[in-house]
């Protein structure tokens, strides 16, 4: 379960590329165990390190720029998180310390995975992303107010589903919430079983 999240102030790490896919965020070769941890070292491994097997930082990649060492926010382009559904991409980002991503758009599976792991996926217009990039200064993200403000007083609002907002704001466990409706689910399945008996299978193992 993720930590509740209400406000973040951070210098955004600029990663202004379109279509940053989850193979780049965490290459498959870095998913070495069946667990959900130990992934931060593999975050952006293909861009972050020189060569493919070593761990020598590539100074040209922004994640290795000391200026952004404390960044908790990523500033991105279009269709961030496209490709593989691997939740390891979000686990790696969260483990590294990121708590929000500002992008022009997100791939849907990735955005869902963010919400389940305490990272806020925030969609902003291209001009807002550009303005934040140009100022290269800390921004404050407030979840209750659904806004992003810059130190020089610019303010952008963002939309977020009420469900996702509540999950992030209170660090809720979705399974616990849904299990409160167990009776209703059972009743629904009872009716559905009568209407669509072919959906319900005998033991298959």
């Amino acid at each position, binding site marked *: 379960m993720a930590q509740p999240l209400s406000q973040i102030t951070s210098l955004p790490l600029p990663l202004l*590329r*379109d*279509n940053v*896919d989850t*193979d*780049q965020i965490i*290459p*498959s*070769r870095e*998913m*070495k*165990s*069946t*667990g*959900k941890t130990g992934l931060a070292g593999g975050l952006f491994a*293909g861009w972050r390190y020189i060569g*493919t097997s070593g761990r020598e930082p590539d100074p040209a990649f922004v994640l290795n720029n000391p200026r952004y060492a404390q960044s908790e926010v990523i500033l991105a382009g*279009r*269709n961030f998180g*496209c*490709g*593989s*559904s*691997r*939740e390891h991409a979000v686990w790696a980002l969260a483990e590294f310390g990121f708590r929000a991503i500002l992008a022009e*758009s*997100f*791939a*849907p*599976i990735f955005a*869902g*995975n963010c919400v*389940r792991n305490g990272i806020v996926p925030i969609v902003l217009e291209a001009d807002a992303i550009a303005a934040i990039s140009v100022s290269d200064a800390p921004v404050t993200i407030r979840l209750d107010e659904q806004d992003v403000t810059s130190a020089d007083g610019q303010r952008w609002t963002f939309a977020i*589903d*009420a*469900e996702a*907002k*509540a999950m992030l704001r209170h660090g809720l466990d*979705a*399974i616990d*919430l*849904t*299990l409160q*409706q*167990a009776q*209703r*689910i059972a009743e*629904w*399945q009872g009716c*559905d079983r009568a209407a*669509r*008996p*072919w*959906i*319900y*299978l*005998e*033991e*298959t*193992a």
Partner: protein
Amino acid sequence: MRSTPRWRPPLSEPLTLFDRIWRSHVVASLEGGADLVAIDRIFLHERTGAAALNALAAAGRKVADPARVFAVTDHIVDTRPGRTDQTLMPGGQAFIAETRAATQAAGIRLFDVNDPDQGIVHVISPELGIVLPGATLIAPDSHTCTQGAFGALAWGIGSSEAEHAMATGTLRLKKPGTMRVTFSGTLPALVTPKDMALALIARYGAGGGAGHAVEFAGDAVRALGMEGRMTLCNMATEFSAMTGMIVPDEKTFAWLEGRRYAPAGPAWDAALAHWRTLISDAGARFDREIEIDAGTLAPMISWGTSPEHAVGIDQCVPEDAPQRALDYIGLEKGTSLRGIRIDAAFIGSCTNSRLSDLRQAAALLRGKLVADGVKAICVPGSSRVKREAEAEGLDRVFVEAGFEWRESGCSMCFYAGGESFGHGARVASTTNRNFESRQGPNVKTHIASPATVAASALAGCLADPREIT
């Protein structure tokens, strides 16, 4: 005398296929506008299956209905002949062993390494009648949208959602918008569903479907067989759509009849009557509409590092190509795609590894030889596809042409630290992703149809299948 108007039920509003399936699965409406949606089928694989099942068990939760959860070893299982649990991926064996243990403990049917029904999840699920029209099906794999070809609502999710669905039989979802992509006209010869998908994504962007569930419609879609429909729906995730789907028809029903987990006897008749209601009504409104004339399409080839970086095989690298993608792929603006030398050719993946794909490639390869220096590999999508291909003698066509003929699995569609084509190799591939290093360190992937990849393997360079004689 005036008659009293009789009460009539309000005319039901026209619905899309997506709306029909969604509405029939809403268990409850949640605060904040999301719905609690019933999930009919869940499919796990060995790459992430153990993680989800172990997390569930660690939280003291149970799989609510294990009979409706299936699992398969496809992602990192070896595809070389005579395989065991050993894989070239460092630590890969543990993923297989832990998935085997976790599924057994949970009472979930696993199609294991050497099970005759083993294969890529989105190939075997239809083969076994696990996906059905009107069903909701999820898997922790982005290409689950493949199965929308059967008029199901099928989509990829992460591990947390897999856990949620297994524990509760539901997901909490915000309903997406709807989009209809209509392919009118008739596909020209040697232009395939893969080319339809790549043309759509090239035209409207890799994010073009974001926020929408896509229905593929039109004469060119109706004319496709089930396998071609699967290829088209498979690429919906590369369009960033929630899913792709096609209204089920007689082809769909005939394809499913007699499959192992499909209904049989009176249950089949009842199911069939229900499935025939799964249409998009004539007046149904979609939030977005796109129309493409299939008759104008050409075989497509990717030139960059996103599926949106694709053009007709007879075109050049566009003048507005982003420099970053060109630096990676090692091409310049204005370069003709046809004639670019390749080091390898790969036919396989959940996109293009079914019997019709292999037949299409074999028809071009028959009696010819792969060009010198080209490493060529064919990986059937399932053990069943492999057997059926061998029964037709397709394996001999591939092997005699110079292809390796493998056991089924995801294989070299992605690189997990094991097998690859060699550092920086240039590959013509029937897979779905041309991302940086997707198929191995610095591997330059050009995605295309089986016909285009087969033609390229013969020519030793990217080639137009229409020019192979």
